[in-house]
C-alpha cells in the first residue's frame, strides 16, 4: 500500500473538492432561496469561464478588469435568466422549473458553440506556477490556488449568511412566498439577488476550473458532479456543499487514480445512488415531511 501515493491523490482530491464546493454553493444559493434545482449550474460555470476568456484573451483586458467583468457579466445573465424564465413559473410544479433549467443548459451550450465554437481553449495564466509540495506529496499549483480561492469565497459566504438578516429572508422566501411577502420581504428582489449571486459564484468557479483544465462547450458536465455534491450534502445546506464537495472530490480522485479515468463519473454516480437510498435528503439537508 503506497501511502505516499494515497496521500498525494487524497490531497488533490480534497483540493478539487474545494472547487466542487464553490460550485455547489452557487447551486445551494438558488435552491435555498427559490427551491429551484438548477441543473444548468455546470453551464453557468462555463459561461463565466468563456466570459473571462473573452475579456482576458480576446479583448486582452488586464486581469484585475477581466475577472470582475466576467463575474459581473455572469451576474447580469443570472438576473436575466431569473426574470425571463424562472419567475414566470412561480407556483408551477417543481418539475416544470427543473425542465426549464434543462432547456437553459441546452441554450447555453448552443450559444457557446455558436459564439466561440466547440473547440477547446486555454485561459490566460494568472495563478502562481510553482509546484506545491506538502511533505513529499506533489500538488498541482493551479489546483491548490484554485482551492484556496474557493475556500476564501466559501468562508465569505458563510459569514455573510451568519451575520446578515438577508440569510433569513432567503430561507423565508423559499419556504413560503406569500407569507414572506406579507412580512415585508421583497420576494422578487430576493429571487433576483439569489440568482445573481449564484451566477457570480458559478462564474468564479468556472474561471478557476477553466484555468486548470481548459474550457470547452462540454464543460457543463462538471455540473453533474456538482449535482451529486449537493445531493450528498443536502440541497439547501451551505455546510453540506462544503462537506459534500470534499467527499466527492476525494471519491473522484481515488476512483480516477486506482480504477482509471473512465471510472470517475461512474464512482460519483454510484455514491449518488447509495445516498439516495440511504439518506435521500443528504447529510445536512432538511427533511421534507408530507402531510395527508
Amino acid at each position, binding site marked *: 500500500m503506497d501511502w505516499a501515493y494515497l496521500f498525494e491523490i487524497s490531497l488533490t482530491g480534497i483540493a478539487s473538492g474545494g472547487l466542487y464546493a464553490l460550485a455547489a454553493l452557487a447551486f445551494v444559493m438558488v435552491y435555498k432561496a427559490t427551491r429551484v*434545482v438548477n441543473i444548468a449550474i455546470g453551464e453557468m460555470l462555463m459561461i463565466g469561464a468563456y466570459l473571462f476568456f473573452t475579456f482576458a484573451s480576446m479583448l486582452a483586458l488586464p486581469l484585475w478588469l477581466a475577472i470582475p467583468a466576467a463575474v459581473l457579466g455572469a451576474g447580469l445573465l443570472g438576473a436575466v435568466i431569473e426574470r*425571463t*424564465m424562472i419567475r*414566470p*413559473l412561480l407556483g*408551477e410544479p*417543481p*418539475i*416544470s422549473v*427543473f*425542465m*426549464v433549467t*434543462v*432547456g*437553459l*443548459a*441546452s*441554450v*447555453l*451550450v*448552443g*450559444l*457557446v*458553440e*455558436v459564439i466561440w*465554437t*466547440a473547440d477547446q481553449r486555454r485561459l490566460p495564466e494568472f495563478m502562481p506556477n510553482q509546484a506545491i509540495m506538502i511533505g513529499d506529496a506533489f500538488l498541482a499549483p493551479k489546483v491548490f490556488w484554485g482551492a484556496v480561492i474557493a475556500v476564501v469565497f466559501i468562508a465569505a459566504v458563510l459569514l455573510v449568511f451568519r451575520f446578515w438578516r438577508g440569510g433569513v429572508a432567503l430561507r423565508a422566501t423559499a419556504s413560503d412566498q406569500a407569507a414572506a411577502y406579507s412580512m415585508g420581504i421583497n420576494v422578487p428582489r430576493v429571487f433576483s439577488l439569489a440568482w445573481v449571486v449564484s451566477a457570480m459564484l458559478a462564474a468564479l468557479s468556472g474561471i478557476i476550473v477553466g484555468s486548470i483544465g481548459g474550457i470547452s*462547450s462540454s464543460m457543463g458536465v462538471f455540473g*453533474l458532479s456538482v*449535482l451529486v455534491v449537493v*445531493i450528498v450534502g443536502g440541497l439547501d445546506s451551505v455546510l453540506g456543499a462544503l462537506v459534500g464537495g470534499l467527499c466527492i472530490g476525494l471519491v473522484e480522485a481515488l476512483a480516477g487514480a486506482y480504477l482509471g479515468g*473512465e471510472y470517475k*463519473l*461512474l464512482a460519483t*454516480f*454510484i455514491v*449518488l*445512488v447509495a445516498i*439516495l*437510498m440511504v439518506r*435521500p435528503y443528504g447529510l445536512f439537508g432538511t427533511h421534507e415531511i*408530507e402531510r*395527508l
Partner: protein
Amino acid sequence: MRIGTLKESYIADAALFDSRTQKVWLAIAAALLLLFPFMASDYWLYLACLVSINVASATGLNILTGYTGLVSLGQAAFMGLGAYTVAILQINVGSPFLLNILAGGFVAMLGGLIVGIPSLRVKGLYLAIATIAASFIAHFLFANMKFTGGTGGLALPPASLFGLVLDTSFRLYWVIVPVTVLMLLGAANLFRTRVGRAFIAIRDRDISAEVLGIPLLRYKLLSFGLSSFYAGVAGGLWAYFFRVVTPESFPLLMSIFFLAAIIVGGMGTILGGILGAVFMTMVPELLKLVFDLLPDSTSLTVYLSPVRTIIFGLLIIGFLVFEPHGLAEVWRRIRRFFHLWPFRN
C-alpha cells in the same frame, strides 16, 4: 358545430372515438397512413419511420412521467437496453425478428423495474436525478462490457420477416408503423381502466391514493416497467432501422429530447405524445431546410448543430413558460372553436 352527441350505453360513452366526425377523421388518417409509403420519397419514408419510433418511445415516457408523474431522464438508456438486446440476439442467435423486439422490450422492462425500486423512498426531482445516474451507469455498461462490442458498438444484419429482408425504409415502415399504432392503442386503453386511473392518482396525490386502496410500490413499478417496455421496443425498432448500435447512440441528450417531446406535445395526453414526437423530430429537419435556403449555406452548416441545440432548449423553455399544457392543449382549443362555431363560447 358539434351538437348533442348522444350515447346510448355506458360502453359507447367510454369509446375512444365517440363521434361520427371523429370516426371519419380516423378513417382518413388510416387511409393516409396506408397510402403514404407508395407516394413518398425515400427521405420522407425515412422520416416517417423515425417519427414513428419516436412516437412509440415518447408515449412510453408519457405513461411514466406525464400520467404517473415520475420524472425520468432515463428513457434513452432503456431504449439502449432494447437496442442492444435486439442487436446481440440478431447477431449471435439469429432468432426471429419480432421475438427479438419483444425480448428487447422485456430486457428494458427489467431495467425499468430495477430503476423503479427506489421510487418509493426517492421522490420527485431526486428520482429524476437518480434516473440520470442510471443513464450513466447504463452508458458505462454499454461501453465496457465485452458482448456489447465496447465503444465501437455492434452492427447488425437487417431483420427478415417471412423471408422478406427488411432493409429499406419502405419495408420497415410496414412493421414500425403498425407496431407504433398498437402501442398507442394500448396506452389509450390503459387510461380507460383502473390501472390508468391509478397512475394518474399517483401523480396527483400519491399518499391519498394509497389510503384509497392503491398499492403504491406495485403501481409505480408497473408504470416504470410498462414505460421501459415501450422504450425497449422502440429501441429494438431503432436498432433494426439504423443497423448500428453504439454507446453513443443513446446519450442523455436523447432522454432530454423525449422529455422535451412530451412537454411540447402535452404531458398526460396520448395525443400529446404523438404531436410532441412529430414536432421534435421535424424541427431539426425544418432547420436543415431553412439553412439550405439561406445564401452562403455551405459555410453556415457548422452552425447547424449548435443552433439546433439552442432551438431545442428554447422550445422547452418557451412551451413551459407560455403553453405548459403543450400542443395538445392548442389542438383542444382549435377543436373547441370549431365545435362551438359560429358561437364564441
